[in-house]
């Protein structure tokens, strides 16, 4: 049962982050942009951790 949950988690949050940033920019809502950036960074962090674990041969 080896699938690193950080991979789908990261991809999902990065995608949602992009949607929020684009929506915030088009509607000029700063709170949506900030939230999108926060969510997107969290997604990228998860992807980085998954990539690093794969490099070390350790899967969570």
């Amino acid at each position, binding site marked *: *049962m080896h*699938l690193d949950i950080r991979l*789908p988690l990261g991809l999902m949050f990065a995608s949602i982050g992009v949607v929020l940033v684009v*929506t915030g920019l088009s509607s000029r809502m700063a709170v949506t942009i900030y*939230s999108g950036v926060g969510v997107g960074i*969290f997604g990228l962090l998860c992807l980085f951790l998954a990539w690093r674990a794969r490099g070390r041969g350790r899967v969570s």
Partner: protein
Amino acid sequence: MVTLSLSPADYLILAIYFAFVLGIGVVLRRKLSGSADFFESGRSLPAWVCALGFIGANLGAQEVMGMAASGAKYGAMTAHFYWLPAVSAMVFVGVFMMPFYYGSRARSVPEYLKLRFDERTRTFNAATFAVMTIFSSGISMYALGRLLNLILGWNFHLCLAACGAVVLVYILLGGLTSAIYNEVIQFFLIVAGFLPLVWLGLIAVGGWDGLVARLKVVSVARGYEEGAWMHTWANTGNPAENPMGIEWVGLTMGLGFVLAFGYWCTDFLVVQRAMAAENMAAARRTPILAAIPKMLFPGLVILPGMIAIALHTAHVGGFSLPQNAGEPDYNMTVPALLAHFFPSGLLGLGLTALIASFMSGMAGNVTAFNTVWTYDIYQTHVKPGASDAHYLFVGRLATVAGIAASIGAAYFAARFNNIMDVLQLVFAFVNAPLFATFLLGMFWRRTTSAGAFYGLILGTVGAACHHGLTLPTHAVPGIKGGWLGAVLHAYPSEMAQNFWTAIWAWLACFGATLLVSLATRRTKSDDELRGLVYGLTERPAESGVAWYARPASLGGAVLVAVILLNLYFW
């Protein structure tokens, strides 16, 4: 009435969530090789994933919406559901009980009861637990359908069918791992969806100082001392002096000891998450790691309710809670906040977090149900000794049946306006005595099988007698109590009555188990009880492990932190 209208961006976020949920199931399907993978995640998950699953299984949307509602109605006292009672119980199960659950190689909580006592105790627990999980799952479905119907105008029946189908597909594909992974996703979605809500709410109410000042007005307006909405313990000397109507004895014994320990230490729904861990050390750390976010969650789910009632009472920023029979409709606190504060995009994120919570709640119950049904009922009483593939097939069939029964329970729930009260009562009837059975069974080798079985039954009868002879003030005899004819005591609130029902159930079970055990002969030798009873089991070795990775020291640090939180909000 609160109504939300979604933009294409909101729908896109919902679609992304559903795509990933189903995608995870598809990927896990290819890695699933037998019943152990399906029911137990192959005991292969790391502690942090199990910990988030452990807390996520308890963090259904009813919990999220209910705690926000309670935050508005009762204030900071609602944090008792998160702090000392829950955290102490989680540390206790990690430090003391997990070595028996995990070390005995039992595949479920009822199976531990079989190893420790006998088949009838296991069957009694398995049957009551299976019924409870179906009702819990059904109520979760009903609440989701009702909420989406009310605030978005979506068709109730379609919502039930669609969400039931998604949960069914991802459990059929990936089993317990799929459910746990979705609980992890749900956890982070709630954090991402509710943090901006708290932030925007605090700005609107004038920051922390503004919130405190406005809650003083709320307290005085409702006839309490001005700190009643901000303190957790200060007004518990007299039930009439706090909005929950509870005194400290009922709070510490009922919620703090019996209900919290009964739930976190014996309910297979949560314990199953820790039993999926990759080794004993990870299993023991699971509940303790889960206690860390548990401590912080009042800031995400209770605080919004307190902000809402402060804004509502002070008529600030145009925010108001919807009314129901002349009173604020507290159950609509979260939807009202989402509608007021969240613009397009963020609204989709908040709504996705709520839907994810509802679906995780259902999935958690259904995975616990299919395991207990397959291992503790089918394999034991219907067809023992069949192949692994057969039990995997039966597990999948039980998943389909569990979802179908949950949908049935959702329609059943729709016919009653107080089904949630009934379910809470069932928890007090089932979990409270069970905790006494476990406490004696795990820590006193003299506890006999007859003692455990009759103790459980008498504990349940004790709960029924207490409930039947007491009543909350202003309630009429019936489903809320007093159905035995005479009302011997009236409680200021239903919550107080529930806490004391749990206390009586626990005391009855503890006393009966003790007496019957002393009056009957042991049927298991010390050798047979090795690994199942504290005094007969070798402690897991911890030499060479860093202090923060040791369950006892990690648990101690968590307890200190929660005590500090209690002192700050005393």
